[in-house]
């Protein structure tokens, strides 16, 4: 594996919060990311959307300095070599995949440690944590050991730890995973509010609804490569006029006949369900039902829906974001 890290990357834009240039990271398993070029503007909520294992977390780990690139270069808030740059890391808030806290300590002790390490004074930390624990509805649990917390509570604590020092850049890996409905709403509201105040966010998610609703721009990542990017509305233009048909079958069937139907843009099987992206052609629906029936299939339910960003991803890659 060639290891080439450009020490003096090309001139990066001061307006960009994060800029990558042919950034690659290859693991011994053969997975990783390859030749990623990105520019995330300051104050923007930028979505990295792709299925599990597509490279979203690897890209966030590179940008946060947790791992080093195999080749290429990148700049964060105008600086590079983040793994050696304490001052740069002070400006960044991170929610990693999974949860990682000192389990024997209370939620408040954990959050206090991170707030202080990121440079808040004791007085600032007390005020900020009071506000954030209240926001996250963890007030009544803050002095309990983290080992007694549910997964959702641990995720909320990770968000508190990431936000306490008012970072300029937030790197969030599936931040709403495990949160209850009201917490998700509160979280979305917070993200938009922070964006308005100039904080940049990179949000890695496989929830296309979250991405569509929250992000100013999105990059689709598939098998370690960026396969499409733009504003959600621009991306949706790829499938303008299309619609999504969801079929639940009694048992799985061969989908080759369905793929051959004129007007079917993409089809993917997920267990006993079929997801079909069809062009705006009224003939598709009867032909689809006929193909299933003639193919020996049995339909339990059929639903026609407006397409989503997930369908754009399906059209581009031939696979679903959730899978």
């Amino acid at each position, binding site marked *: 594996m060639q290891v080439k890290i450009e020490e003096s990357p090309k001139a990066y834009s001061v307006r960009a919060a994060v800029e990558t240039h042919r950034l690659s990271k290859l*693991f*011994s*398993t053969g997975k990783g990311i390859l030749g990623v070029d990105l520019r995330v503007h300051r104050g923007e909520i930028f979505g990295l959307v792709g299925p599990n294992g597509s490279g979203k977390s690897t890209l966030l780990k590179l940008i*946060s*300095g*947790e*791992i*080093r690139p195999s080749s290429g270069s990148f700049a964060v808030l105008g600086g590079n070599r983040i*793994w050696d740059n*304490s*001052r740069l*890391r*002070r400006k*960044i808030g*991170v929610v*990693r995949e*999974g*949860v*990682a*806290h*000192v*389990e*024997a*300590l209370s939620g*408040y*002790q954990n959050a*206090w*440690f*991170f707030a*202080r*390490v*990121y*440079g808040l004074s*004791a007085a600032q930390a007390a005020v900020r944590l009071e506000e954030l624990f209240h926001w996250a509805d963890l007030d009544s649990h803050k002095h309990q*050991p983290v080992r007694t917390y549910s997964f959702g509570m641990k995720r909320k604590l990770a968000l508190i730890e990431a936000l306490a020092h008012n970072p300029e850049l937030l790197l969030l890996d599936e931040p709403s995973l495990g949160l209850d409905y009201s917490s998700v709403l509160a979280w979305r509201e917070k993200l938009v509010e922070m964006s308005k105040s100039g904080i940049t966010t990179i949000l890695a998610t496989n929830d296309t609804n979250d991405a569509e609703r929250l992000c100013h721009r999105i990059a689709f990542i598939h098998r370690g490569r960026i396969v499409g990017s733009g504003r959600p509305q621009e991306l949706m233009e790829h499938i303008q006029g299309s619609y999504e048909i969801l079929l639940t079958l009694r048992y799985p069937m061969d989908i080759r006949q369905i793929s051959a139907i004129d007007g079917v843009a993409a089809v993917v099987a997920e267990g006993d369900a079929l997801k079909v992206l069809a062009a705006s052609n009224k003939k598709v629906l009867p032909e689809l039902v006929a193909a299933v029936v003639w193919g020996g299939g049995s339909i339990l339910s059929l639903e026609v829906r407006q397409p989503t960003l997930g369908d754009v991803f399906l059209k581009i890659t031939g696979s679903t974001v959730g899978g």
Partner: protein
Amino acid sequence: MLPSTLWQVGVAELLSSRRSTFIKVIFPTVVGGLYLFVAPSGFFTASLITVLAAVTGCFGTGITLSRARSEGVLQRITLTPLSRRRIVLEQLAINSAVDFCQMLPLALLTSMKFEAYDLRLLTLLLALGVALVAANLLGLLMIILATTVGEAMLYSSLALFPLLYIGGVFTPVGLEGTRAILSSTVPFSCLQQALLAVIGESPAWPALRVVETSVVAGAGMLLVAALVGPRVLRFEP
């Protein structure tokens, strides 16, 4: 206690689980203390205490850090403004300090049993501190190779026991020869020699040599920790 630094996190963790901390502190004192009264010879007493100190330091750090790494806590701490070198040195310091508190009652009990309240006790405490830093450093370095807690223990054992042998902990080392030279490079031999002096056996090294070797070994280990330690915090799968 609200921790603002890594070493304070270590202390807060200890205070939060008082029962296990009590057991940790009492274990070497009870095991070593009993042995003080039944050991067939002073050499075996010194050997047992040295092995207890080495295992306490080496396995403790190996297990603690490899668990923190597999849970992602180390990775998260690495993303903070703390430098990797500082994280490693603070971890080494807090683990060694905790182990010192754990072994201190046994060291004091030994000196009381053999009525060694003079320079021999001070030499013993210095050598104990250096041996614990060495054991913790070994545990720390072994987790570079290990991916699980079990592997950390295995690699630590593979490295630790030959070092204890070379250090003259299992069989006495003479004043000359290759083994005598090698033993002077292993910090555990300082503790063994200091214990022999306290117990009243005739150590191969005079007290001054134990002090000199301990100081040089301590400085050398801190240098190794500063140079190689940050490698522990690289998380390339």
